[in-house]
C-alpha cells in the first residue's frame, strides 16, 4: 500500500493515512497539534532553554564517577582491549558458522558495512555527542583506537575460527576468549577498588556482572524446578516464588542493612559486591521462570529421540533440550536483562552507590548550579544514556530472534 501511495503522491497518502473519515481527520488535527507542541517543546528545550553547561562540566563524573585520575588510562586500555576482543569474537563465531554451513559467506563488504551502520548508528551518534561534549582529546583517541582495534580483531578472528580445531584446540581458544574479560577485570579492580567506581560505568558494570552470573544459576533453578526429585523441586520452587514475590528495592535495603548479621565480618562484602549479589539472586529467579517456559516449549519427541539414540540424561539436557529451550525464549531473556540494567539505578537509591541517577541528583547541588532547577537537564541526559543502551539491546534481540528463526520451526 505504501508503494502505491508514494507513487500517487503525498496528497493521496495523506488522505489514506490521515483523513480517511471525518473522525480520523479530527484525530489527525488534535494529535497533530499535540505532536507539534511536543516537538516544539523538546526542540526548544534542547537548543534554547536547556542549560547544558552542567552536563559538560560534570560529564566525567556522570560517566565514570570519582575514578582516580591516575588510573583512567587503565579504563581506556580496557575499553580498547574489549573492542578488540569483541571484534575477534565476532569474526571467530562468523567463521565457524560459515565453516559449518549455517550462514553463507557471500555478503559483500559494502553490504556488511551498511548492515553494521544500520544496527549501530544510534549508539554511534550518542558516543559522538559524548565526545563533542567532552572537549578533550583523550576520549577521541580512545574511541578511535577502540574502533581500529575492533576492526583489527574482526579481521584476525576468522583465522582462529576457520580451521577445524580438535577438542583440545577448541578448549584452548574458548578458554583464551573467556579469560580476556576476567584478566581485564582484575587489571582494573586491583588498581581501583570498588568504592571509587561510579557513574554510568558502574551501572553497566553491575548489570554485566549480574547478567553473567545469573545465567548459570537461573538454568540450574529452572532444571531444579522441573526435576523429578521432589525435594530439589520444593527447594527451587520455594526460592523462586519467595524472590519473585518481594520487591527488588526491599531486597537491596535488606542486603545493605542486614547482611552484616548473617555473615561474619571477615566475609562481609563491599556495597557494590552486595548489589551484584542481590541483582544476581533476584534476576536468577526470573530467569529460571523464563527458562522453565522454554523447557516446556521443547516438544516431547525431542527428548524421546534423544533417549532413543542412547544419550545419557545429562547429555539429553545439555545437547538437545537446553539449546532449544534457551533459543525459544531469547526475547523474554533479553527483556529481563534490559530490566535488570534499568534496575541498577535502584542500587543508588537503596544502597547509596554513586551510579548515574545519584550523580544526576548530586550535581544539581554543586555550588555553581545549586537552586537553578537544572534537574530536568541532568535527568534528561541520564534518560538518554539508559534509553540508548536499552533500545539498542532490544533491537539487537529482535534481530537475533529473526536470525535464529524463533517460531519458524
Amino acid at each position, binding site marked *: 500500500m505504501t508503494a502505491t501511495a508514494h507513487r500517487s503522491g503525498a496528497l493521496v497518502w495523506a488522505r489514506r493515512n490521515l483523513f480517511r473519515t471525518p473522525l*480520523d481527520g479530527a484525530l489527525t488535527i488534535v*494529535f497533530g497539534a499535540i505532536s507539534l507542541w511536543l516537538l516544539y517543546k523538546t526542540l526548544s528545550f534542547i537548543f534554547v532553554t536547556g542549560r547544558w553547561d552542567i552536563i559538560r562540566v560534570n560529564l566525567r563524573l556522570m560517566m565514570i564517577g570519582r575514578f582516580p585520575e591516575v588510573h583512567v588510562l587503565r579504563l581506556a586500555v580496557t575499553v580498547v582491549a574489549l573492542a578488540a576482543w569483541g571484534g575477534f569474537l565476532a569474526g571467530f563465531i562468523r567463521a565457524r558458522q560459515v565453516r559449518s554451513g549455517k550462514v553463507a559467506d557471500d555478503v559483500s563488504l559494502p553490504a556488511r558495512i551498511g548492515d553494521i551502520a544500520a544496527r549501530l548508528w544510534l549508539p554511534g551518534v550518542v558516543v559522538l555527542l559524548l565526545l563533542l561534549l567532552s572537549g578533550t582529546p583523550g576520549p577521541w583517541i580512545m574511541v578511535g583506537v577502540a574502533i581500529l582495534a575492533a576492526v583489527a580483531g574482526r579481521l584476525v578472528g576468522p583465522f582462529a575460527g576457520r580451521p577445524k580445531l580438535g577438542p583440545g584446540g577448541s578448549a584452548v581458544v574458548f578458554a583464551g576468549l573467556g579469560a580476556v574479560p576476567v584478566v581485564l577485570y582484575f587489571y582494573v579492580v586491583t588498581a581501583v577498588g570498588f568504592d571509587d567506581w561510579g557513574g554510568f560505568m558502574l551501572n553497566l558494570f553491575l548489570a554485566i556482572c549480574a547478567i553473567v552470573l545469573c545465567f548459570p544459576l537461573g538454568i540450574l533453578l529452572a532444571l531444579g524446578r522441573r526435576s523429578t526429585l*521432589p525435594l530439589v523441586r520444593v527447594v527451587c520452587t520455594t526460592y523462586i516464588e519467595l524472590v519473585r*514475590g518481594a520487591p527488588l528495592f526491599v531486597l537491596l535495603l535488606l542486603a545493605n542493612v*542486614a547482611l552484616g*548479621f548473617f555473615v561474619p565480618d571477615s566475609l562481609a562484602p563491599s556495597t557494590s559486591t552486595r548489589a551484584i549479589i542481590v541483582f544476581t539472586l533476584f534476576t536468577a529467579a526470573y530467569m529460571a521462570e523464563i527458562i522453565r517456559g522454554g523447557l516446556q516449549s521443547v516438544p516431547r519427541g525431542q527428548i524421546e529421540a534423544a533417549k532413543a539414540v542412547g544419550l545419557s540424561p545429562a547429555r539429553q539436557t545439555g545437547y538437545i533440550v537446553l539449546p532449544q529451550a534457551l533459543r525459544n525464549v531469547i526475547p523474554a531473556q533479553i527483556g529481563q536483562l534490559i530490566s535488570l540494567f534499568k*534496575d541498577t539505578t*535502584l542500587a543508588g537509591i537503596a544502597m547509596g552507590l554513586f551510579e548515574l541517577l545519584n550523580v544526576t541528583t548530586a550535581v544539581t547541588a554543586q555550588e555553581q548550579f545549586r537552586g537553578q532547577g537544572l534537574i530536568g537537564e541532568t535527568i534528561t541526559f541520564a534518560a538518554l544514556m539508559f534509553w540508548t543502551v536499552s533500545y539498542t539491546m532490544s533491537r539487537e534481540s529482535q534481530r537475533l530472534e529473526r536470525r535464529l528463526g524463533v517460531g519458524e520451526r
Partner: protein
Amino acid sequence: VLKWVAQLVVVGLVVAVVIWLYGNYLDNTAEQNIPTDLGFLGNPANFQITGNELSANAPIRDALWEGVLNTLRVSVAGIVAATILGTLVGIARLSRNWIVSKLATVFVEAVRNVPLALFVVAGLLVVVLGVFPTIQDAWQVGGLAIVSNRGVAVPWFIGAGFGLIVLGAIGALAAWLVARWRSSVSDRTGVLPRSGLWGGGAFLVVFVIGWIALGYDWTLPSLDGRQTIGGIRIDPSFFALFFALVIYTASHIAEIVRGSIQAVPRGQGEAADSVALSAFQRMWYVILPQAFRIAIPPIGNQYLNLIKNSSLGAAIGYYDLTLVAQTTVGNGSPAVPVFALTMVLYICLSLITSVLVNIANRRSALVER
C-alpha cells in the same frame, strides 16, 4: 538410590547454609543485644506519616499497617489508570491513522527503555516541583481541582470512609445482578441486552440512594490564602509516584495489548466489518474481548510488577510500606525482623493479586466455546 543420595546432598547443603546463616544471625544479635522477635511492633513509631492523622507515638504496628494501605492506594489507583492508558495506547499503535500510531509508538519506545526510578525522581523534582506553579498562582481546573507544587487538591467525600467502599460494593453487586438479568432476558427474547447501560444505571441508582440515605456529602477544594481548604489534598510524592507508575506500566501494557490484538485471527475483524459493525463496535464487542482473553496473564504480571515497583515511592518520601519499614529501622527497630515482615507483607499482596488475576483468567477462559 543414587537419586535419593543426590537429593539429600542438595537439600543437606541448602539446610547447612541456612543453619549457618541463621546461627551467625543469632550470635551477632545476641552479641549486640538486638531482639529477634516481633516485640518491637508495640513500641511507639516516633515519626509522622505525611498526609495522615496517625499520631507519631502510635505503635509501629499501626504505622506499618498505614504503610500497607498507602501501598494499596497508589497500587490500585495506578493499576486502574495504567490499564486504561495502556489499552488506549496499545489500540492506538495499531491505528490506521499515521500520526496516532506513530505518537503511540514513540511513547512506548521512549518510556519502556528508561528506568522507572528516573520517572519517579523526575515526577517529583521536575514535574511537581518544577512545572507546577506555587500555591499563590495555582492552576484551578474548573473549580474542581487545584494544582500547585504543594500537591493536587480534588473533590472528596465528607463523612464517608469505610461505608463508601461498602456502598460501592453493594452498587457493584446490583450492577452485576441487573446485567445478568438483562443478558438472560436477551437470551430468551432476543432484544438487545445493553447490560453495560443497565448495570451502570443500577450502580448509579443504588449509589445515589445510599448516598442520600446515609447523609454523605462532598466538598470542593478552594484556595484560602496560602493553603487549600476542603476536598482532599493529594501529596506531591503520591502524585509523582502515581504518574511514574502509570506511564511506565502503561507502556508495558500497551505492548501486551497490541500483541494480543494482533493475535486475534484476522477473520474476526473482517467478519465484524462484513456485518457492518462500526469501528467502535468492532473493537469493543469483537476484538477486545478476545484479545483480553490472551492478555490477562501477562497484564496480571504487570500488576504484580506495579505493586512491587511502588516500593520506589520510598525514594521520594511517599510513606508506603517500604518507607515506613525503612524509617522504623532508622529509628532503631531491629532491621531483620522489620524487613522480613515487610517482605512477607509484599508476598501476601502479590499472592492476593495473582489469585484475583487467576480468577479473572479462569472466568474469561470459561467463556470460550
